[in-house]
């Protein structure tokens, strides 16, 4: 196995009496696009700033390309960072902003101009080099910020929620551009976002963080298909996974799930004989619940209908349980009416009371 580009082992960090990072172990391979995702306050930005060297590390090791860099100053780590606010120097032109790091290193003017030219061409900024940041659109500023990062030819580029200041359409476009950039230059990227869609679409691997801990760390599709706990199950995927509290009932031969609201469904292809009587949470993705006429598992009352054309989201209630249904096609159902629902038994996720997944 090759040495990972970035390795964090047992990394911890406290602000005052609050432990923000509670022992993180991850490794980022060379050329990987890793995304740290989690709700606000989960420590993802702090972790990124620790890699950048903008925050100190209380304990644990940060290893970059085989070398421990806990105490190496930020500018000597070979790391570049794109800030959420872009932090473009307002008194400098685009060219000066991009070339600033080379200028500080006393690189000859001609060489700076050549490098700025190379980067600006790559990012389609050649026309804007003489402008100041205030004269640029949000997307252009974003590209200047990226240009300032890649001109140093860093081994690692860190992104701190770089798309959160852009409108929805521009965000989709920048997502594509970032992926293209990653494919062309192949840098190691660590990217922080609270938006799981950004994480799913761009990452080669996702680190799901919550309250300063790594909840799960895997490829996007693996996180989607096999979340190891209710937090990851609820966080990854949009719309969210349905999480229904209930009990496992049955005998040694066959088991079923009985929701607290009263409805039951059988649990196929699982050996849960030992778990009978256990309080559990049943997780079902919205696309795994469909309106049906055969093999109906439960009936529910429709509360909200969202018709998107290609698919329809139903918010359906059965007792205290609210189920989100993602039905294919356009369904003209009226709120208040009853709908029969069939569940995809093969796609069930079961979690125990502590929220951990039950296999078997």
């Amino acid at each position: 196995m090759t040495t990972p580009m970035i390795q964090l082992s047992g990394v911890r960090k406290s602000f005052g009496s609050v432990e923000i990072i509670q022992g993180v172990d991850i490794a980022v391979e060379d050329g990987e696009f890793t995304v740290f995702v989690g709700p606000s306050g989960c420590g993802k930005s702090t972790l990124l700033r620790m890699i950048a060297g903008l925050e100190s590390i209380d304990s644990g090791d940060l290893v970059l390309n085989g070398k421990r860099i806990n105490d190496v100053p930020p500018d000597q780590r070979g790391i570049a960072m794109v800030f959420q606010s872009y932090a473009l120097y307002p008194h400098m032109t685009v060219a000066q902003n991009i070339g600033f790091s080379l200028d500080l290193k006393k690189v000859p003017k001609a060489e700076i101009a050549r490098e700025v030219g190379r980067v600006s061409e790559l990012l389609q900024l050649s026309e804007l080099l003489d402008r100041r940041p205030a004269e640029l659109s949000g997307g252009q500023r974003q590209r200047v910020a990226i240009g300032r990062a890649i001109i140093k030819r860093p081994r690692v580029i860190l992104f701190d929620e770089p798309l959160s200041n852009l409108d929805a359409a521009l965000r989709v476009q920048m997502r594509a551009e970032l992926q293209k950039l990653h494919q062309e230059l192949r840098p190691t990227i660590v990217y922080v976002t609270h938006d799981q869609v950004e994480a799913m679409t761009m990452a080669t691997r996702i680190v799901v963080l919550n309250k300063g801990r790594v909840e799960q760390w895997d490829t996007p599709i693996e996180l989607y298909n096999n979340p190891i706990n209710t937090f990851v199950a609820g966080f990854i995927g949009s719309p969210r996974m349905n999480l229904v509290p209930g009990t496992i009932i049955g005998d040694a031969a066959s088991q079923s799930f009985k929701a607290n609201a009263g409805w039951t469904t059988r649990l196929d292809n699982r050996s849960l004989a030992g778990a009978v009587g256990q309080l559990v949470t049943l997780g079902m993705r919205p696309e795994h619940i469909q309106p049906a006429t055969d093999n109906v598992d439960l009936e529910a009352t429709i509360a909200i209908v969202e018709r998107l054309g290609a698919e329809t989201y139903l918010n359906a209630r059965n007792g205290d349980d609210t189920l989100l249904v993602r039905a294919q096609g356009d369904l003209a159902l009226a709120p208040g009416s009853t709908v029969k629902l069939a569940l995809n038994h093969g796609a069930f996720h079961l979690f125990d009371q502590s929220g951990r997944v039950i296999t078997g």
Partner: protein
Amino acid sequence: MAGISEKRSGAYTFLAYVTLIVISIFCILPFIWMALASIDSNAQLFLKWPDSVTFDHYTKVFAEENGVRWFANSLFTVLSATFIVMVVAGLGGYALSRSKAWWKQPFLYAILLIRVLPSTALLVPLYKILLTANNGIGTLLRPLVGEHYRSVMQLFGFIDGYLGLIIVLATGQLPLALWIMKVFFDGVPKDYEEAAILDGATLVQRIRRVLIPLALPGLAAAGLFAFMSAWGDFLLPLILLSSPELQTLPIGLFRAFLRVNEIDYGLLAALATIYLIPAVIAFSFARRFLVQTFSGGVKG
């Protein structure tokens, strides 16, 4: 209906303009008197059109009186004080903005208190402190400079020396300047500095290439306030300076007014006009920075 309201608003507008014009005339009259009297060959205490236009008063200020010296003294002390204020307020305002120390708020209000207290009330203890400091530095310098003692003390003395006046002037202007810079830096995101750190900028480079350009509007505003306020200060140079060759413009003006035999209104007006000019120039330079600073704008 529209006609009535139009008429009414017309009358209101007329009334408003009349009021504003009256107030404006009231405000501008002293300046007009000053300007006219300064070029009037027979200037009097009342407002009148010049008998004949002459620049003799200005010539007199510079040729017969010590006008050049006074002007230079004023400019030197006030500019030095302003420079000190800008440096200290720039660094201090930055520190106060970024610090999370518990004493930050109490400190900020305490320095504001300095500004609120009338400095006249503190004059006697201030003089006593400066006198002690003056004796101290005198004892220190006398063996070093020997025969040049007097001229050196005019530069570095705390009483009857430039240094004392400069420091006290600067101290008086610092609280407001610190507040201006603190509030200004509050509006400058830390991201700029962190980006510069990652770009490989040293502390000095960060200050010179990033922070000072970003802080320029704030520094200009703080410096302008310090300059205008120190330029207008009369009491401190009056108390602290006694040598004629150290006199500043306001003191020269004051002494000219106090002369027993004759009051030369033309000369006084010319002096006052000269005294006004730097303040007006400073204001016109810094006006655009003021707008930037106080409309809260470093939006990038």
